[in-house]
């Protein structure tokens, strides 16, 4: 049988155009504002008229209310990401798979946490999103394991095994998975940097973005730690960004937020970030800072995808925007369920 030719610009153009069209179909800002004035059943009906129809129809006999929304959103996200993997050819697919490993980390941690706390497989399954490389069948087999140790054993050969082998016993003993989680994400970013340098078209641009994302994450962590007064931050910082871990440790020790902002501004020269950091000086809540930093990150990614239209960037922009759409809808639904005022919910939306 003849093989599909993936060389040349055609496959990039095909995949990136599909992603652009999909991005247009995402929920626009006006619809979020409209949904803020709706009740939960109205929101469910509203999103049923969009791309979530299939999932809501399929699940409406088993779930209702907030559970229906949650599960439908997770299913849709997983389905959408798997579809993107199907569409992307050759090296683009490998790169996308690497990027989606974030979901594998989340799923593995959820299973380990659930198993450690003795939760039933059904309850753990409800929070899993099989959007990464570990598919539904593999996740089901992990859920059927009796103990967290057996889950770790079953993950041998998946790329997590060495880190899990090193860190899991200590995590289980202390009862906190925070360090294990940090280490897994650090490895994830290190692997992404290696993949970006592997020769994929747009990889150099993406490397620039990954560094920016690492910077934003480190800055977010620094702002969080400023209120918590933690002395040693080295374990919590991700390597590979504009700052070394030692520099970040020094920044964490600065006296005021102003010193931290000045140091960041002198090193990370991105116009929207500059504007945001100026606003941060004027008393902004930690949550608002994090939300705005995420918006800056998305804006930068969008710019990159326009500068490199036929590269990996448009695909990753779609994956990121889709993720935030699902998070926004979940925040909206949860907020409405808990009778939180619309203004407060709006603060939590990434629009």
């Amino acid at each position, binding site marked *: 049988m003849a093989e599909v030719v993936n060389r*040349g*610009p*055609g*496959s990039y*153009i*095909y*995949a*990136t*155009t*599909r992603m652009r*069209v*999909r991005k247009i*179909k995402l929920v626009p800002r006006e619809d979020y504002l409209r949904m803020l004035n709706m009740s939960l059943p109205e929101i469910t009906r509203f999103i049923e008229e969009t791309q979530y129809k299939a999932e809501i129809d399929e699940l409406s006999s088993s779930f209702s209310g907030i559970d229906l929304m949650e599960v439908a959103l997770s299913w849709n996200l997983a389905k959408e990401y798997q579809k993107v993997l199907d569409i992307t050819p050759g090296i683009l697919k490998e790169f996308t798979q690497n990027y989606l490993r974030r979901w594998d980390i989340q799923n593995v941690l959820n299973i380990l946490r659930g198993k450690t706390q003795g939760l039933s497989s059904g309850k753990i399954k409800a929070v899993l999103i099989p959007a990464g490389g570990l598919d539904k069948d593999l996740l089901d087999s992990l859920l059927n394991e009796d103990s967290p140790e057996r889950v770790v054993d079953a993950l041998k050969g998946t790329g997590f095994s060495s880190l899990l082998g090193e860190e899991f016993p200590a995590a289980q003993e202390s009862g906190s998975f925070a360090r294990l989680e940090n280490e897994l994400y650090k490895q994830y970013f290190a692997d992404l940097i290696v993949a970006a340098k592997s020769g994929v078209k747009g990889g150099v641009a993406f490397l620039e973005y990954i560094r920016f994302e690492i910077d934003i994450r480190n800055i977010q962590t620094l702002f969080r730690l400023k209120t918590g007064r933690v002395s040693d931050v080295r374990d919590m910082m991700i390597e590979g960004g504009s700052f070394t871990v030692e520099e970040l440790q020094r920044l964490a020790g600065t006296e005021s937020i102003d010193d931290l902002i000045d140091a960041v501004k002198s090193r990370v020269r991105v116009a929207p970030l500059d504007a945001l950091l100026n606003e941060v000086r004027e008393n902004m809540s930690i949550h608002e800072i994090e939300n705005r930093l995420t918006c800056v990150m998305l804006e930068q990614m969008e710019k990159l995808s326009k500068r490199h239209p036929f590269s990996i960037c448009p695909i990753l922009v779609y994956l990121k925007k889709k993720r935030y759409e699902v998070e926004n809808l979940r925040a909206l639904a949860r907020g409405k369920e808990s009778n939180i005022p619309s203004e407060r919910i709006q603060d939590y939306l990434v629009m």
Partner: protein
Amino acid sequence: MVAETIMTVEVAEASAAGMKAIGAGLAVGLTGIATGIAEMAIGPAAVGATAENKDIFGLVLLLTVIPETIVIFGLVVALLMIF
């Protein structure tokens, strides 16, 4: 001894007709290649966009064939040269 070449009227006319034919061939051939190169990017984009939204098939078909004008210009030039 110097070899002399005698150019008769018939030979000159045949040579001119041959040159015209080569020119016409180049006009169509080169513009055909240019059209192909232009469509190489538009084609996959059109197929990708149609795969996501079938309603735009008519529009993308139109966009895909726009570079065909290049080869049509070449064809017109070739016909003008020959006739």
